């Protein structure tokens, strides 16, 4: 009955969305946002932190009261909203990448060690993963940021120290399966050092797997940063973070709901782009357990 698998007969729309179509849409959208973040100083019409209290809460272009210099209006301190949104992409992507560097380094190292050595090393690291999973992430991050003093560096460090679990889980599984493959056995037989085998042979073989986890985690981190900033314990004002902008716009949602609608939409688009791109990559490079 091999000839009868549903997948072969008809590609599912889920697969399509998670395959090339999704990767294309997500990748394009992501590239646009990355370019906006990179060229923020050239693209932003105004200084994102420059206040002008005489021009507070100007509405975006589709309103009658709008002003042409401020295409997307101004916030409660008279700062240009479009410029803040453009610079906000930098914060989201920057925190996302910064955290991934920390959490990836921790998680991949632990996963490699656990998967390659097995035995008590694996037991200890697996236990660490289980323990980490049981911690309420938002609350612990909030507490750590509050106690460590809210700043971009603290935020990145705290999230990096907390979010290594998925890297570890996936790398561990990949290392376990690679460990018994012939070329690794061969290297061990000719006496290659453990460090060499781990970091020069096994690690490069996991590139695709790790790339997929990176995308999943970047989306996760972006949402977390927004939530923490929204709660006032993430990025400090006046840095233009989308989460912080939603928090600041909250007092005026009765009359100016666009203040939260715009940064929220930006967040959704970015997370959607990363997710589609990551899912697409996952489908192209082969399955990875979440």
């Amino acid at each position: 009955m091999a000839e009868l698998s549903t997948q072969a007969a008809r590609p599912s729309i889920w697969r399509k969305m998670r395959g090339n179509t999704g990767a294309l849409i997500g990748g394009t959208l992501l590239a646009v946002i990355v370019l906006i973040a990179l060229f923020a100083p050239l693209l932003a019409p105004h200084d994102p932190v420059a206040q002008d209290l005489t021009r507070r809460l100007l509405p975006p272009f589709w309103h009658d009261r709008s002003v042409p210099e401020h295409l997307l209006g101004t916030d409660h301190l008279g700062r240009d909203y479009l410029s803040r949104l453009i610079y906000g992409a930098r914060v989201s992507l920057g925190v996302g990448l910064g955290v991934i560097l920390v959490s990836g380094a921790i998680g991949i190292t632990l996963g490699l060690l656990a998967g390659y050595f097995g035995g008590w090393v694996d037991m200890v690291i697996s236990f660490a993963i289980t323990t980490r999973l049981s911690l309420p992430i938002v609350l612990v991050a909030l507490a750590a940021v509050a106690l460590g003093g809210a700043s971009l560096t603290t935020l990145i460090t705290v999230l990096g120290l907390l979010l290594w679990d998925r890297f570890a889980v996936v790398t561990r599984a990949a290392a376990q399966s690679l460990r018994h493959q012939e070329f690794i056995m061969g290297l061990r037989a000719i006496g290659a050092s453990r460090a060499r085998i781990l970091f020069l042979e096994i690690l490069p073989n996991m590139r695709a797997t790790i790339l997929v986890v990176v995308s999943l985690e970047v989306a996760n981190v972006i949402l977390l940063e927004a939530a923490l900033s929204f709660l006032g314990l993430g990025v400090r004002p006046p840095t233009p973070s989308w989460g912080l902008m939603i928090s600041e716009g909250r007092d005026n949602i009765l009359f100016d709901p666009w203040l939260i609608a715009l940064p929220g939409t930006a967040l959704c688009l970015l997370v959607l782009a990363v997710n589609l791109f990551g899912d697409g990559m996952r489908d192209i490079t082969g399955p990875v357990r979440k």
Partner: protein
Amino acid sequence: MLSFLSKRLLVALLVCVTVSALSFGLMFLSGDPAIAIAGSGGRAEDAEAIRVAYGFDRPLVIQYLDWIGSALTGDLGQSIYFNVPVTEIIGNRVGVTLTLGFISFLVALVIAVPLGIAAALRPNGWIDRIALVIAVSGQAIPSFWLGLMAIVVFGVWYGMVPISGAETWQGYILPVVVLSYYAIPELMRITRSGMIDVLATDYVRAAKAKGLPMHLVISRHALRNAVLPLVSLAAVQLGQLLSGSIVIESVFALNGLGRLAWESLLRSDLPVVQAIILILSLLYVVLTTLADILNAVLDPRLRGAS
């Protein structure tokens, strides 16, 4: 079965001990908890008085053992801000979080599981397409933002539901909608993919070949096996709903544990924060352990040779 259970429980216990040590240690993250409590602008004498009063001058291990010892007897310390037992404050607030978490979880399950099954039964059908849209959007929309937008649209524009507080049951409507929407995508994805895998198995074909009607094939043969991966995920999701409702509680001004934790952080009321982290972690450990046991009950292969 017994050795599986005892092993599983031993790991759970060890995790509890480690988690308690971590939530205890968090107190010292800022360096000196006495200064954190007194406030950075506080006088040195105040900090010293606090240090002695709270026993921060003792060795860490003694402090931890003291804390965990009283925690075991149900004493989680004294709130610095309110100066009443932490358990009392938490007791007043935990109901809201549990109600919100459990109702959202049930709503999510009731929507996600049938939708996942229906999507799996007819891949590429219109239900499958709706499911895909819900899954993709649900994973991209930040729940706190969705909550705010819901307040704007349904509370402010249409005035259909109260926009904050949980004095009446209507106050729970929007938070439940938002939180369950957050939990639905993962639950639905795993139901759908599990169901598709199971429907393609020989034992489902064999069940049809026996002449069983489709509804029995699905409920007795397919669902029972498709539900196995769902159980573990559901436990994780419930844990996340309970601990993740901190943001939603703040959006909708619900006086639950999450909001209490947030307020306590802003007031440097560390014993309360510690206790909440401990409680949520233990809750997660209990939930995942229960899920493992439930899985062993549902899947005879995990019970060992019969």
